C-alpha cells in the first residue's frame, strides 16, 4: 500500500515538475508547480512527518505560489517577445543543465548508501513535539540565525516597497 502510494506520488511529482517546464502558458506552469508541492506533501505524510507536510502546503502552496500567481496574472505576457540572441540563450541553458546534472550525479554517485535500521527507527520522529524539541535544543543557534535572516529580509522588503519622497502615485 505504502509502496504503491510512493510510486503514485513520485510519478505525479515528476510528471507535474516536467509540465512546469513544458507548459507554454506561465499560469499553467504555476498551477503545475502547486501540484508538485502537493505530491511532495504526500511524500512527507508517507514518511510520517505530518507537520512538515502541512507547513509545506501552507507556506509554499498557500502563500508563496499565491503571490506568484498574483504577479503573473497582472503581467501582459503576450506582448513580451524574446529579445536577444537565440544561440547564446540555448548554449547557456545547455551549460547550466549540464552543470546541475553533473552536480546531482556526482552527489548520488559518491553519497554513502544508508539503510534505515528498523530496530533503532523512531516512527514518531516527524511529529511536531519531537521536531520542536530538536529545533529548540540541538539546533537552537541555527534556528535563531535563520529567524534573524527572515527578519532582515522582511525589513528589507518593507524598505524597498515604501513610498519615496515626492512620489505621489503608488
Amino acid at each position, binding site marked *: 500500500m505504502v509502496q504503491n502510494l510512493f510510486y503514485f506520488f513520485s510519478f505525479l511529482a515528476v510528471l507535474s515538475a516536467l509540465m512546469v517546464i513544458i507548459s507554454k502558458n506561465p499560469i499553467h506552469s504555476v498551477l503545475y508547480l502547486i501540484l508538485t508541492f502537493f505530491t511532495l506533501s504526500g511524500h512527507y505524510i508517507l514518511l510520517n512527518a505530518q507537520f512538515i507536510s*502541512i*507547513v509545506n502546503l501552507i507556506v509554499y*502552496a498557500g*502563500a508563496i505560489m499565491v503571490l506568484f500567481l*498574483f504577479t503573473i*496574472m497582472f503581467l501582459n505576457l503576450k506582448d513580451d517577445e524574446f529579445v536577444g540572441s537565440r544561440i547564446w540563450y540555448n548554449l547557456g541553458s545547455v551549460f547550466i543543465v549540464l552543470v546541475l546534472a553533473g552536480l546531482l550525479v556526482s552527489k548520488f554517485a559518491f553519497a554513502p548508501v544508508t539503510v534505515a535500521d528498523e530496530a533503532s527507527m523512531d516512527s514518531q520522529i516527524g511529529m511536531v513535539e519531537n521536531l520542536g524539541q530538536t529545533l529548540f535544543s540541538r539546533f537552537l543557534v541555527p534556528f535563531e540565525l535563520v529567524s534573524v535572516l527572515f527578519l532582515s529580509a522582511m525589513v528589507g522588503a518593507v524598505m524597498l516597497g515604501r513610498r519615496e519622497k515626492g512620489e505621489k502615485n503608488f
Partner: protein
Amino acid sequence: MELYFFLAKAIIILVIFGITLLIATYSTYAERKVAAFIQDRIGPNRAGPWGLLQPIADAGKMFFKEDFIPAKASKWLFIAGPSLAMITACLTSCVVPFGSTLDLRFLGIENLVPIQGIDVNIGILYVFGLVSLGVYGVMIGGWASNNKFSLLGAMRAASQNISYELAMSLSIIAIIMMTGSLSINQIVDDQDAFWKWNVFRQPVGFIIFIVCAFAECNRTPFDLPECETELIGGYHTEYSSMKLGFYLFAEYINMFVSSAVISALYFGGYHFPGESLLAGMLPADALGHNLLTMIGVGVFFGKILFFIFFFMWVRWTIARFRYDQLMNLGWKSLIPLSILNILVTGAVVLAWPKIESAFAFLN
C-alpha cells in the same frame, strides 16, 4: 473488530458531510428569511410551507440554466475554479470534533469512537492549510474568465485573503501556546468548564479571529471581491448555471465551517455549562455516555447555528468597507494587535505558576 470501527467511522464521516451540505443549503434559505426579518419583509414563502422548499427550487433552477463558457476563456481552468472552491470548502470539516466519543461496545467495537473525521495532531494547521488554498478557486476562476472585472475581483480576493490569513494564524498562536497542542480535540477538551472557555481567556484573540473569519469567507462587510457597485459581480461575473451556484454554495459551506471552528476554538466546542453535573446524574454505562455525547453534539450544533445567524446579522447591519480601509484594518490594526496578544499571552503563561502561588491563600 477493526472493520466495525472503520465502518462506524465511515458512517460518521458521511453523516458529517451530509449535515454540512444540508446546513449550507438551508443557510441560503435562512439568509433570506433573516434579511427579510431585519428589513421587515416576509421573505420566501411560495415554495412549500413557509417557503421551506425554496433552496431545492433554487438548485433546480441553477441546474437547468444555460451553462455558458465565454469564447476567449481558458476552458479547463474556467471549470476548475468553482470545483476547487467547492473541494477546499468541503474538506475542512473533517478535522472538527463535532462531539465527544461514542461507546459502541455492544456492537463489538472495543475503542471509543470519536465523532470527528480524523484526529490528526496538526488539526488546526490543516484548517489553515485549506483556508490558504481556498483562494485558488476564486483566483483561477477570475483569471480564466478573461474579463477585467473578474480579474480585479480575483486580485482583491487574493490580497484580502493573504492579508487576513496572517492575523488569523497569529491570533490562534496564543491559543496554541495556552493549550500546548495543535490538535483541535485537545483545544476543545482544555475548555471543559464554562469559565475556561477561550473567549474569556482570549477576548482579543477572539475578536481578531472572528473579524478575519468574516474576511476569509468574503462576507459583508468584507465582500469586496464581488462588490457589485464597482466590479459588476467580481470574480463570478462570467459564471452562470451551477458553476455560479458552486461559488455561492462554497461561501455558505465556508460559513458553516468557520462557525464550527469558532465554536470549537473559543466557545468550548461540545462542552456546555453543567456538563459534569449532568454526567453525575446519568447512569455510568454506555447508554449514559452516549446520551451525554449526543447532548454535546446538539449543543455544538446550537453554537454553530448561532454563529451562522451572527454572520447573517452582521451582513444586514454593517455597510461594506472601502478597499484601503480594509487593508489598513488588516495590516495596521489586526496584525500588530495579534502580535501584542501573543506577547502578553506568553508572559502570562510563563508567570502563571507564580501568580497562582501568590494567590494560594484564597483557596
